């Protein structure tokens, strides 16, 4: 097992300063683009939305694409149940995110960028728009050509998947596309597009401010940097906390649990449920259990059947519905556990459903479809008795 990091609180995302003058951007656009890309690659930064793709590579691919019509999109469609860290960034330090977007636009050669904001965050629009107005003014003064537009979602979880998000921005149903081609090659309007999470852009901005060396001091070999965690459920410390990656889950629970933690759902409804007996052997980070930052804690008063039921109801509603494994699979998992509970199907039917969850993981069309069964398999495997009785 990789050595864990212990639990270390950091305060770089909300701490330090957020420049309304966009000083980091000013500094960055005087640097060589390749140099910035190399910094992001060397930093080991990986996407903070959950999938964890190396950010520097994404930027490099997009920068290498021919043509001058390219786009940067900030994925602010924070819809994963139990996730709310982007909300805090958007409300408190939007400058850092905007600055990160602008640096990305600079290095890949885009002059148009978008923030795709979930419909549930409509209330932020006036403040965000004000900050964007400020940004545009600052950009003009720097002679930096970039327009950033806000686009709203309208209540569709799957639009957090980057190609679904692009479809939605194009005015269509938010259905994920076939990949390849990837957005860095054919994205918005068929042009090279970088889609990154809110927090990823903040991190990129941070790397440009503090430099690679400082950044890689945070986290572990495989999980560089800090991470915002959205902590909720049975915890006295619900809220957004910035921690270094690479900690043991047991350290996390010691800090945030209520002394009766039974399970932690890591990564939201599409993530994994870790039972108490595995807290000590679970590392939160890319070497262990990667996460977009949602940590839902459940104490022993909670029924894991009930938890799973809630997740499955969510997925059967929020699956885009286009591919068979996800559309039908989610419904079957839900109907299946209900049928077992009512003793209309034997307990052994759980095995069939576990097989189904495997099929969903390998045969669904998009990353979300491939992860919707994670909670099912991890909860059923660890709490089989709660499913049956």
């Amino acid at each position: 097992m990789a050595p864990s990091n212990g639990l270390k609180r950091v305060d770089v995302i909300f701490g330090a300063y957020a420049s309304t003058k966009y000083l980091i951007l000013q500094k960055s656009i005087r640097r060589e683009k390749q140099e910035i890309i190399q910094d992001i690659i060397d930093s080991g930064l990986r996407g903070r939305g959950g999938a964890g793709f190396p950010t520097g590579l994404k930027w490099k691919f997009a920068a290498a694409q021919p043509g001058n019509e390219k786009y940067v999109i900030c994925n602010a469609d924070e819809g994963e149940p139990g996730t709310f860290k982007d909300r805090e960034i958007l409300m408190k330090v939007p400058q850092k995110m905007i600055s990160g977007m602008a640096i990305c636009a600079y290095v890949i050669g885009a002059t148009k960028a978008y923030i795709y904001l979930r419909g549930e965050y409509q209330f932020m629009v006036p403040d965000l728009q004000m900050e964007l107005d400020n940004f545009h003014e600052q950009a003009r003064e720097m002679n930096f050509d970039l327009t950033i537009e806000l686009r709203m979602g309208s209540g569709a979880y799957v639009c957090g998947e980057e190609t679904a998000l692009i479809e939605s921005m194009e005015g269509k149903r938010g259905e994920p596309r076939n990949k390849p081609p990837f957005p860095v090659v054919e994205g918005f309007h068929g042009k090279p597009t970088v889609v990154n999470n809110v927090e990823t852009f903040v991190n990129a901005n941070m790397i440009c401010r503090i430099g690679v060396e400082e950044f890689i001091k945070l986290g572990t070999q495989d999980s560089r940097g800090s991470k915002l965690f959205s902590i909720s459920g049975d915890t006295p410390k619900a809220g957004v906390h910035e921690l270094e990656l690479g900690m043991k889950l047991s350290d996390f629970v010691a800090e945030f649990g209520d002394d009766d933690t039974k399970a932690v759902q890591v990564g939201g409804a599409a993530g994994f449920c870790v039972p108490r007996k595995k807290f000590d052997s679970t590392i939160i980070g890319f070497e262990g259990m990667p996460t977009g930052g949602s940590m839902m804690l459940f104490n022993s008063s909670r029924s894991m059947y009930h938890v799973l039921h809630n997740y499955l109801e969510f997925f059967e509603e929020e699956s885009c519905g286009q591919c068979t494994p996800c559309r039908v699979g989610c419904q079957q998992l839900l109907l299946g556990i209900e049928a077992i509970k009512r003793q209309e199907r034997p307990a052994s039917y759980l095995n069939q459903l576990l097989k189904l969850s495997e099929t969903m993981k390998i045969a669904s069309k998009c990353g979300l479809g491939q992860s919707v069964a994670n909670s099912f398999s991890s909860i059923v495997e660890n709490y089989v008795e709660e499913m049956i009785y």
Partner: protein
Amino acid sequence: MNQIQPYVRSLADKYGRERECLLPILQEIVATEHVLSQDAMVEVAKELNLSAAEVYGTASFYSFLNTKPHGKYVIRVCKSIVAEMKGKKEIVDKLCDILKIRVGETTPDGRFTLLETNDIGWSDQEPSMLINEKPYTYLTPEKIVQIIAGYQANGKSNNHQQIN
């Protein structure tokens, strides 16, 4: 029809007539009309040179683009697991009790529609709800009484918002 046509045209003038302008247009119609009516969708289709079915198919994908009429204030109570754990049921019961409607219904005066919705991004402050775009968190049945009274009295009230 006669009123919706110039309105939709003005929206198309404002946002544009490309396919990518469809969602912003539909979003604004819902915000002002509280519904995407058949006539509105037909007019949007005309302006953007789409088929009406395409407009409907796109709108129906998005939970917030309702094609059945909603009240002036749409209450969306978060139904995530954490919300359930923190007492969502009491909140919904209280709302049903005050408004005298069930989830999914609209008050006869057309002021309130009560819905449940998926995670709205306030799991650290459950139970939570949106009234139109405005979030309310750390809800209790007592707070619900005050909040709804505020809307019943005079539209929006700012006193109960819980944003740090």
